[in-house]
């Protein structure tokens, strides 16, 4: 390390130093190099080591791709099945991203692990945009963060607005009980008029749609139906049983939140595996390209040194003969 620094320093100072001192410097530097006496050809050791490390990295990325592919297959069916959970709610309560309320809570869904392309930064970017869109003089917008990666990005500039951070969601395979407990935790600890869940919706292995789902609090739902605003049609439904409408709406809003969050977490996990798969695929391809280039350089250098040696031997022999 110190030697390398010295060499760099020497190169930088070279034009400033007079020729005599330069030769002195060079001889002192050469004596420090780890080249044995009498070796004239270029050492290929460095290239060989580099090739070995690139090959190892390629092996790792290939293995990660395989793992991501097998995980993706398991989680994709679950994510697609879970879409049936929120669709009835959209039919009944609708999805109203443009609703204007005082207390907004943005739930950013991200992954705990990295190496999965840009899905986490997309989720964070969309969350920031939603935050900006919903901030005003008498409004309050808070973050609830799911996953380590969005936390790392949001802590940098939105520290003040973070309410809860939830991590290590994917230690066990994702299931409804877990997500509903998380939803319960959020409901009990955060005051909100509208919850906005930001996640990456899985479309295919290479395309993910950043999506926002809006869940309104029961009071807001009631206000919207009574004023005949965006949810005016809800009044045409009949309420059965002994409960009042507000009770039903509260239960419904809570259940809707846990269902939508379940779907969001699954879709995001699915997108994560897909993104990781394509990222690892392209990185193993890059490693392959790099290996090809290094092999070419290596072989060319080796060939050149062999040719030089042959020429030396032949010319030496012919000098002896002549």
């Amino acid at each position, binding site marked *: 390390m110190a030697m390398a620094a010295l060499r760099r320093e020497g190169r930088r100072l070279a034009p400033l130093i007079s020729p005599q001192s330069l030769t002195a410097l060079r001889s002192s530097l050469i004596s420090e190099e780890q080249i044995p006496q009498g070796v004239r050809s270029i050492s290929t050791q460095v290239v060989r080591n580099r090739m070995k490390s690139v090959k190892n990295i390629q092996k790792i990325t290939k293995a990660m791709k395989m793992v991501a592919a097998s995980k993706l297959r398991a989680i994709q069916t679950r994510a697609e099945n879970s879409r049936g959970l929120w669709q009835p709610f959209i039919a009944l309560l609708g999805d109203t991203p443009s609703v204007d309320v005082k207390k907004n809570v943005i739930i950013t869904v991200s992954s705990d692990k990295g190496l999965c392309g840009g899905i986490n930064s997309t989720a964070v970017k969309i969350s920031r945009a939603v935050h900006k869109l919903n901030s005003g003089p008498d409004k309050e917008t808070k973050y609830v963060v799911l996953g380590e990666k969005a936390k790392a990005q949001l802590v940098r500039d939105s520290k003040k607005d973070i*309410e809860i951070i939830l991590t290590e969601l994917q230690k066990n395979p994702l299931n409804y*009980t*877990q997500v509903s407990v998380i939803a319960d935790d959020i409901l009990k600890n955060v005051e909100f008029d509208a919850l906005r869940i930001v996640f990456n919706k899985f479309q295919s292995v290479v395309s993910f749609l950043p999506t926002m789902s809006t869940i309104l609090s029961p009071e807001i739902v009631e206000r919207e139906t009574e004023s005949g605003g965006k949810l005016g049609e809800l009044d045409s439904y009949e309420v059965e049983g002994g409960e009042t409408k507000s009770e039903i709406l509260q239960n419904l809003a809570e259940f809707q939140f846990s269902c939508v969050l379940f779907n969001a977490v699954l879709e995001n996990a699915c997108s994560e595996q897909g993104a990781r798969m394509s990222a690892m695929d392209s990185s193993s391809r890059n490693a392959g390209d790099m290996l090809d280039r290094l092999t070419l350089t290596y072989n060319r250098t080796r060939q050149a040194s062999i040719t030089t040696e042959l020429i030396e031997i032949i010319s030496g022999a012919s000098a002896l003969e002549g």
Partner: protein
Amino acid sequence: MASNAAVPFWRAAGMTYITYSNICANLVRNCLKEPHRSEALSREKVHFVSSKWVGGKPEKPTVRSDTPEH
């Protein structure tokens, strides 16, 4: 209509609909016959770490887990 009569009670106990439905779901799972029962119960494991933030500072994180720490 027994469930209708129960509503005010679990609300008063500070439960949300989610907690209530989870307890009911767990009851149903416990009613399964043996090979299916343990399978269904082992599937629904809860594990996450939650930390509240107050004024830009994290508070001590709490671990919520069904599986004991090794």
